[in-house]
């Protein structure tokens, strides 16, 4: 099979690929076509993510400044980094998408390594990526919860939620495993929003945002537009 025929097959021009495919070629090209059809190859993160990543790393670095860098936690991190480097070396010897076809054996899952958290004197911080529900599939957001003496400051960066007015608004909630909801504040539209919580994300880790109507009923409408789970990034 010539390069032209392979490209024709990849491009879906079957007239340009006259003969039957070599089985090895077919497997390889079909794997590539499957990847090209995978939404993961085309989806892009929200624009807020750069800010979120930068804030998370710089915040963690600033908390780390007072820690003993050569202590056990750092040693553990270095060991973890060594494992990553070993895997990277393995990859460096491997070709792009393997030319030689062959069914790949199911690989064992690598055991995930949890994030080592620092225990310095600084504020505990939780973070959550918020996903739009079927009521607001285009919405997305990021929440950062920071412990202060007054309570937990909840900073939301939300996009994709249209403005609500005339007695309609959005309300954020924290929820525990038993389903108990605690309101943490209300707002009108996407943007950077600061709210406050009197309960900790350690016990109320789920963050939801609902559409509400000022009709005298303070309960959740159940119309969730965003949802996510907070985790410790201290």
């Amino acid at each position, binding site marked *: 099979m010539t390069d032209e025929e392979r490209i024709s097959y990849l491009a879906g021009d079957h007239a340009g690929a006259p003969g039957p495919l070599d089985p090895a070629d077919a497997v390889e090209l079909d*794997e590539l076509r499957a990847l090209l059809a995978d939404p993961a190859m085309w989806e892009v993160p929200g624009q807020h*993510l750069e800010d979120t990543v930068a804030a998370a790393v710089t915040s963690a670095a600033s908390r780390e400044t007072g820690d003993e860098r050569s202590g056990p936690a750092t040693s553990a991190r270095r060991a973890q980094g060594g494992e990553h480097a070993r895997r990277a070396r393995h990859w460096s010897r491997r070709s792009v998408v393997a030319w030689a076809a062959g069914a790949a054996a199911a690989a064992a899952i690598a055991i*995930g390594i949890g994030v080592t958290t620092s225990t310095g004197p600084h504020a505990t911080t939780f973070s959550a990526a918020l996903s739009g529900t079927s009521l607001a599939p285009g919405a997305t957001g990021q929440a950062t919860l920071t412990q202060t003496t007054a309570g937990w400051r909840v900073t939301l960066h939300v996009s994709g939620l249209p403005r609500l007015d005339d007695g309609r608004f959005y309300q954020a909630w924290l929820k525990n495993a038993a389903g108990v909801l605690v309101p943490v504040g209300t707002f009108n539209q996407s943007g950077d929003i600061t709210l406050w919580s009197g309960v900790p994300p350690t016990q109320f880790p789920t963050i939801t945002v609902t559409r509400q109507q000022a009709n005298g009923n303070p309960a959740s409408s159940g119309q969730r537009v965003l949802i996510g789970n907070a985790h410790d990034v201290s």
Partner: protein
Amino acid sequence: MGDPLLLSRFTAGDEDAVRTIYRAYGRLVFAVAYKVLGDRGLAEEATQQAFLQAWRAAASFEPSKELGPWLATIARRAAIDVHRREARHAHSSLEDADPADAGLVSLPPSVDRIYDAWQVRQALSELSPDEADLVRLQHMEGLTHTQIAERLNIPVGTVKSRSFRAHRRLAGLLGHLRGDDPAESAPRQPPIGTGGQR
């Protein structure tokens, strides 16, 4: 990665360095996480975790090595952590679970599959916007050449010739041409500090 100073600044938590590396690799890290998790919000969360873990491990990273594969490995592991957490919390019992829930029946993609995805994502980012759009319409949306022609309001013959050119470029970037030595034709690593990816 060829820039020990940038890595040193990243290790120190310098915001500009974090942003520079994010702009070069953020979309690729996100693509790996999305490949594992299949959910945009969770993938963004895993991306954030991956960069945090990379920062924590950066002191032991060898600057002579490529940063991309190292970040992809971290991204996969961060995504698996998120996947496991979600699987633990998603259902109080098996009876509550959706039989189609991927978390019940499938393993996360292997390291090799993730690396394939990384390479393809990187190659796609090197196509022109028109080329990438055509490849996306054809493969992800599953449109025929005729349907693409109708969508873009151009002749079918033009779609075919553009498609051939786009796929030839893609195959070249990925080493899917007989004349290429795959070891020599791997996509280039993203340029650092040159404006990021599309």
